[in-house]
Every structure is written in structure tokens, then in C-alpha cells.
């Protein structure tokens, strides 16, 4: 029997009317007893990078408010831990890739991952979550990314769970002075996916881009809650979401720019561009701009659109049939985020997944 074991999660930082049904969400799953995850997501060693199957020794601080509920559940259910450290001054030549695959033998995954980018280091980390649709699977995960001073790190999370599975995932990012973090969250699967991310720009001149790319089709549901907190002076952080909604999909996007007192000179922008390809799809967006500091520059913009008919005519005038032209235009709307995804084969995989969903659209 399905139970709401996760309670309310992905809470909007400043709640609005309950009637809007956007303040939080929950996940109903039939959860059996958690067993160990015996999959092998890390399929090779990476020279110069330290990887341990345990949490860091130092105590973690409290989680950001919007992710606290999820962290509590992940810690309670946790059956997989990993701590990746990019040593001080080290530049990784290839991305560190973890492939989490859920199937009959590993139907439940609650992973708590720690990524530490030491001062002056540089690396890309790719986390892929996939599942076998023939089994009854559930993923619940929490990633903590510490980006120390003057380091640069790119984290790409690719959620491609089977359409009958639930996924809950949260990412906490802390960026120190002069460091740069790029987080790309690709939400492409699951019956219902709950995705949260909170980035704290703690040090002066810290910089972060949080990009979300999603496609929601059929009866699927996606709930996103993304936030950047500006604490340091002259920090810069942008949230950019690109997605398409098809069929009877339901999508909620909560994005918050939170300028804390003292973050003088901080700049931030949040934008979302949604392509609504079905009149039945439900599209909810809640952009929040919170200013505790006067000397900041914060902007937000949300656009919801259909396929541009003039573009459609242009492409069709070159012989491209209507369905293919619609697909090209829809795919084009993802380009600004897809361009950030490397290596190329990962970008192609995500592109192919989007194309497949568009191909199957009514």
C-alpha cells in the first residue's frame, strides 16, 4: 500500500496561498525495508581524486530550510554514502562519473553524497540516475557540494528514472570566495520527481549558475525548488530553467533569489522559459526575489509560450514537415542549457531523451 512517507518536502521559502498548491509537495510510495545498495556507480578510479565510501569526518552544518525535510529522510533511509575530494590546486582532466542504476536487485537507493572541491581545484562531476521500469524502484538522494576558495566545479545531475518510479533529490551547494560553481539539473524521467537545490554564495565574489532543463510528458509530475542565497559581497548567481510540457504533465517551478543583508554588489537573475505543447498540461511557477540588502541587482522573468508560428512557417518553407519543425523549435528552446553540458556524448544523450519525448508527443 502506498504511504506518504516523506511528508511535506520542497517547501517554498516564503509560503503563499495554500489554494495555489505550490507551497510544498509530497511523495506517495510503497516502501519496503531499506536494504543496502549493492550497485557499483563508480566504475573506475580517477587519478588524483580521493573517493571514500563514508561521510566526511567534520560535522555538517544545518541544511538550508528548503532542503531540510529531504535531508532528514535521506539520512534516515541512507543506504549509500560517498565522499569525493578534489585536492587543493588539482585540475581533473576528465569528469568523474557516477551511474546509479536501480533494478530488481537494487530497487531502493537513498544516497548521501559529499563533494569537496578544495581551494584552487577544478573538476566536473556527473551523476546519472536510471532505473529499470520492470521493477518497483525509488530514489531519494542528497548531494552536498563544497566549493572552496578560488576553485571551479561543474555538477551535472541527470535524472532519467523510468516513468513508473518516484524520485526525490536535493543538492546543497556552498561557494566560497572567488570560487565558481555551475550546477545543471536535467529532469527527464520519473512518474513524479521532486528536485531541490540551494546554492549559498558565502564568500565575496563567489559565482554560481544553476541551470535546470526538463521535459515532462504523459501523466508525469515534476516539482522543482531552486534557490540562490547571496551572502558575500559582489557575488553573482543566476537561475535559468528551460523546459517543455506535453500531454497531461504537471510542473511546478519554485525559484528564489535571496539577497542577505551584507551582500552588497550582488547580482542575480532568475528566468524560466516554458514551452507548453499541450493545453492539458499544468504549469505553475513561483519566482521569489527576497532582498535584505539594498545595494543589489536582482531580476526575474518567466515566459510561457507555445510554438512560434512564424518560426514554424519558416522551417516548413524549407521543406521540413510540421512535426519535425515543431520538434526542432522545441529542442532549440533547450539550447542555452544544453550547451553547458559536457562531455558531448552526455549532451547527446540528454538531447536524444528530449527528442524521444518530443517524437512521442501527440
Amino acid at each position, binding site marked *: 500500500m502506498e504511504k506518504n512517507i516523506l511528508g511535506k518536502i520542497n517547501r517554498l521559502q516564503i509560503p503563499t496561498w495554500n489554494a495555489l498548491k505550490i507551497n510544498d509537495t509530497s511523495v506517495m510510495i510503497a516502501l519496503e525495508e531499506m536494504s543496502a545498495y549493492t550497485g557499483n556507480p563508480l566504475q573506475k578510479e580517477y587519478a588524483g581524486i580521493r573517493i571514500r565510501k563514508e561521510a566526511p569526518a567534520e560535522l555538517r552544518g544545518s541544511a538550508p530550510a528548503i532542503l531540510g525535510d529531504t535531508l532528514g529522510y535521506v539520512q534516515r533511509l541512507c543506504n549509500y554514502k560517498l565522499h569525493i575530494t578534489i585536492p587543493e590546486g588539482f585540475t581533473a582532466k576528465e569528469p568523474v562519473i557516477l551511474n546509479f542504476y536501480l533494478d530488481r536487485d537494487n530497487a531502493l537507493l537513498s544516497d548521501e553524497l559529499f563533494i569537496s572541491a578544495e581551494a584552487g581545484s577544478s573538476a566536473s562531476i556527473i551523476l546519472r540516475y536510471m532505473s529499470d521500469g520492470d521493477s518497483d524502484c525509488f530514489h531519494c538522494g542528497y548531494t552536498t557540494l563544497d566549493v572552496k576558495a578560488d576553485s571551479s566545479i561543474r555538477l551535472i545531475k541527470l535524472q532519467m528514472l523510468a516513468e513508473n518510479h518516484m524520485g526525490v533529490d536535493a543538492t546543497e551547494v556552498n561557494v566560497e570566495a572567488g570560487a565558481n560553481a555551475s550546477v545543471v539539473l536535467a529532469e527527464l524521467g520519473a512518474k513524479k520527481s521532486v528536485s531541490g537545490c540551494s546554492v549559498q554564495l558565502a564568500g565575496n565574489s563567489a559565482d554560481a549558475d544553476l541551470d535546470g532543463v526538463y521535459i515532462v510528458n504523459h501523466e508525469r509530475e515534476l516539482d522543482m525548488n531552486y534557490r540562490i542565497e547571496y551572502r558575500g559581497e559582489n557575488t553573482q548567481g543566476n537561475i535559468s530553467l528551460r523546459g517543455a510540457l506535453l500531454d497531461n504533465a504537471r510542473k511546478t517551478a519554485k525559484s528564489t533569489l535571496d539577497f542577505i543583508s551584507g551582500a552588497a554588489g550582488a547580482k542575480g537573475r532568475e528566468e524560466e522559459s516554458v514551452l507548453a505543447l499541450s493545453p492539458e498540461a499544468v504549469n505553475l511557477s513561483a519566482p521569489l526575489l527576497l532582498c535584505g540588502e539594498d545595494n543589489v541587482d536582482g531580476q526575474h522573468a518567466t515566459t510561457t509560450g507555445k510554438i512560434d508560428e512564424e518560426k514554424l512557417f519558416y522551417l516548413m518553407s524549407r521543406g521540413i514537415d510540421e512535426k519535425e519543425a515543431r520538434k526542432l523549435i522545441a529542442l532549440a528552446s533547450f539550447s*542555452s542549457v544544453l550547451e553547458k553540458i559536457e562531455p558531448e556524448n552526455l549532451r547527446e544523450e540528454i538531447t536524444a531523451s528530449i527528442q524521444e519525448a518530443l517524437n512521442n508527443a501527440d
Partner: protein
Amino acid sequence: MLTISGLKARVGDSDILKGLDLTINAGETHVIMGPNGAGKSTLANVIMGHPDYVVTHGSIVFDGEDITDAKTDERAKKGLFMTFQNPEEVAGITVESFLRTARFAVTGKSERAWDFHKELLTLMERLDFDESYAARHLNIGFSGGEKKKNEILQMLALHPRLAILDETDSGLDVDAVKTVSEGVRGYKNEKNALLIITHSTKILENIKVDAVHILVDGQIVKNGGASLIDEVNHSGFTALTPSKSIEGVS
């Protein structure tokens, strides 16, 4: 090749084309001239099947087939092509990728990527178009002139039977007009045809014109040979259409 008979068309509640006949044969270059608002671009869009333009009367026959109700992509596959006054910008697809997709769509034949690439670079060189633009997203960040060159590039790559140039020379400087004009001459042969829509005559200076049609208020009011261009240049449209009152044209 193209026979338009008694064509009437409207956009929304406005009747734009009010009974228009036009025949273009293979090997011919026709020019449609007329003042602003005459219906020149409407004619181009109606021939190409823009969904906003509704044909209320008449027919369009291309290569013996009635295409009045055909979808735009079907018209393109039959060999119709139109350059746009304001070419659309499409992020995420490069000029080369777009052109390969389009060429496959109109020919149905797959080509080796390298062969297509080489041909494309040759065409771009002919148009004095920097080859780096092949890898740029379609019309994104292009200047007005570059967009027009890109339209001509597409025409050359897709080998249409009938190309309609809708104000291709507008907004171009003298050198760009010359380059575009040379590109148009390179396209033209005895098996295809051109319909050039313009209200200036710069682009026509280096092109052999077979017929000129003056379009006013949705109807062709005068037909003639290339000499009609000089008459327009000399006397304007008003003098050529004494029975019509044309406002705002000097």
C-alpha cells in the same frame, strides 16, 4: 511552371489580393513591383502557403498540380522557395545542420556530411560569407545583411524550381546588394524560375528580367518587359497607373 488564376486572399478581415493572374514559365525571371501596402509580400506568402493568409478565390497551380490548399512543406518539396524579409532566428540549430535537414527534406536523399560541408563552404565563399557562420545558430546574432545572405545561401543549397525573393535587397548596402545579386545570377538557369518582389531596383541591375508586373491594391495593373523598370524609376508608380489613386508614393 506557376499559374495563378483569379487569386483573392485575405488576412483576418482585410482583403489584400483582389483577383490576381500570373503565369511564370521555366527559365523566366519575373519582377513584381509596387508601392508599400500593395500586397506584394502577401502574394509571396500566399504562394508559399502561410497559414495566416486565407485564399478566398482562385487557384495556384505549380508544375501542373493545384497546390492552393497544400501545406507549406509540401510546396517546398515540390520546388517552391521564398526568401524572407525578416528571417527567423532559431537557437540551437546551426546553419549547416539546418540546411542539411532542409536538403534531406526536399530531396529525400541522404548525403555524406563531408560532401555537403564542402559544397556549403563553396557556396558561402561565393556569397562572401565567412565560413564560421556555418557553425553558428540560425540567424542568431546575424546582421540584417548576413540574414539576407543566409537566405540566398539556402536558395543556392536547396536548388528550388521557383525562388521567390521577397524584398531581399532591402536594408542592404551597395556591396551586399551586388553580392546577393551575383548569388541570384548563379542560381538562375533555363530550368528554374525567379519571382523577385521589390520596390527598389538596385538588385535588378545585374539580372536579366523577362517580365515586370506592377501590383497596386491587390491587383496587377500593368504588365511589361524590363523597360517597365526604367519607367518606374523615372515616373514612379502613380504615373503608370492613372486609373488608380496611390497615396503616399512619390
